[in-house]
């Protein structure tokens, strides 16, 4: 089985037509579906939050073994499909950077809640950075989370009244007061 880092590649990754955007509607829909799943799985495995379309190094978009890679048009097509599904967002108007939500924001919010509960942080205060990179987060999915994503999750929880976000003592960081 081929791998990209820790990620196991499916067999059809070696099927050349997989890398050509199919014109026939039914075939294309199937193709898009497969790519969407593959992208999400890959990003989840490698904790990738942002994909740059012009990034030549993103390994998922090419297969040297069969000498094929996706065209810009194809990449945009697949990512747009993810965005339409709500599993990704364009970070800029020119659609060059895409935020991949291999967990939905809702899911992240739940993960934060679990994190708080697991560590007994129900009434405490933490900075956002601490949530992201602190000792407690190590070994959890929160570790190294994209800041934008985390803020969105926190905001969602704030709206539910589970926490409050405030400006920290230092100019850089924000703090979170949990009140689960």
């Amino acid at each position, binding site marked *: 089985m081929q791998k990209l880092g820790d990620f196991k590649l499916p067999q059809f990754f070696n099927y050349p*037509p997989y890398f*050509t955007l199919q*014109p026939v509607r039914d*075939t294309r829909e199937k193709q898009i*579906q*497969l790519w969407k799943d593959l992208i999400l799985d890959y990003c989840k495995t490698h904790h990738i939050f942002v994909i740059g379309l012009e990034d030549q190094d993103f390994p998922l978009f090419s297969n040297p073994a069969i000498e094929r890679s996706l065209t810009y048009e194809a990449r945009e097509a697949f990512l747009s499909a993810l965005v339409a599904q709500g599993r990704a967002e364009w970070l800029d108007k020119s659609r060059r950077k895409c935020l991949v939500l291999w967990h939905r924001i809702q899911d992240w919010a739940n993960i934060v809640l679990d994190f708080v509960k697991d560590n007994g942080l129900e009434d405490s205060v933490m900075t956002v950075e601490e949530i992201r990179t602190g000792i407690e987060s190590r070994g959890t999915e929160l570790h190294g989370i994209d800041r934008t994503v985390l803020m969105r999750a926190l905001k969602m929880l704030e709206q539910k009244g589970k926490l409050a976000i405030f400006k920290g003592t230092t100019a850089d960081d924000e703090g979170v007061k949990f009140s689960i």
Partner: protein
Amino acid sequence: MAGNCLQAVELTTSGRPVLLPTEIECSLLSAVDLECEDLPNFPHLKSGLLILTTHRLLWLPDSTTTIPTASSSASAIPLAAITHIFAAKKSIKSMFHSPRLRFQLSVSPEGRVPDSGSGSRSVVVTVVVRGKSDLDAFLSKFWESWRGRAWEIGDEQGSSNAVSGSGSASSSGLYTREGTVRMVGVSGILRKEQEMWESTDKSLQDAFQDLNALMSKAKEMVMLAEKMRQKLLSGSQPNDEELGSKQEMQDWMLSVGIISPVTKESAGAQYHQQLSRQLADFVRLPLERAGGMMNLIDIYCLFNRARGTELISPEDLLQACSLWEKFDVPVMLRKFDSGVMVIQNKSHSDEEVFARIKTLVMKPDALRTGISASDAAITLGIAPGMAKEHLLTAESKGLLCRDTSPDGFRFYINLFPEIDPNDLYLVKDYGIYHTWLRAASASG
């Protein structure tokens, strides 16, 4: 007195010849002898001035050197009496002699040039040009005047029939017998040119008038044709009578070059029907050889080449093919999504072609590297262009998938339906996906 042979020429006081009412001078030759061996009483006309006019040939004695004698005075030969002008003879002898010009004259039995009518006897007169003159130019003018037969026009006014612009209407009364001559030779020629220009101009204007008239008529014609076409289109209930006249109208319009728009509803003009049948017959053999399907353009070329003459236009071909729907012929016209039009046997089945393509594309090599249009062409025994159309159609049916790369444009068997979307890693032990995997893994 000019002997008994030739006519006398009246001279003015200054020695210019008096010309007839419509006579115009055409050319002059100096130092000319007139001889006639056949007539013993032909006057002795030596070294005089030969004047060619539209009516006569005048010989005037050179007043500076010759004293007019009884035997050599101004004489005239009416062009009407000339029966033939000989071509200039060019020989070694003529190079050393003075240029000569000979013509045949019709005279009375006594040897007189008749005033009117023609004589019964024929003699040959020779014009010897002693001086330096261009005999050829004179000769051509001689021909012109003689052929022009200006003397036959007589006193008629305004006849433009004569050669060399004898605009006689304007020139009548130009010469008087009293001796007052308004025009001399050169200006006569100039005048002739002028008149020629004027008449050309006038006829050009007339022509343009005609052209304008033609154009307005043409516009009417086109409008009429359009109206008829509209009428045919809107066509009321066709009973037999009307159908007949409709047919006629269509034929007529077709001959004028307007394609009838009714051809789809009606059976079409006879021409197209016949052509259609002929085409269906012709197409049978090439179609077989091409494997049952042929590009319309290829048919066009083959058909026209076979016809040799009376080639048909692309529109005619298309019409003829469209008519096949109405007849019971074993061929049909087919248009692909890509716009390519082909003729195929009705017995041709797409399914059969797809089955053959599928077999081809499931071969181990094809599974590994796919097939190109040329591969398919070789296997299916058809033209590469046709093969491509088949592959594209198979793709649209979901049988094949395309692969575009720097290596080219190739097709593979469509695996996508075989992949379980819920388990991306699952490959069953049977089926196309399994076969493909085996073939793909077998390569190095």
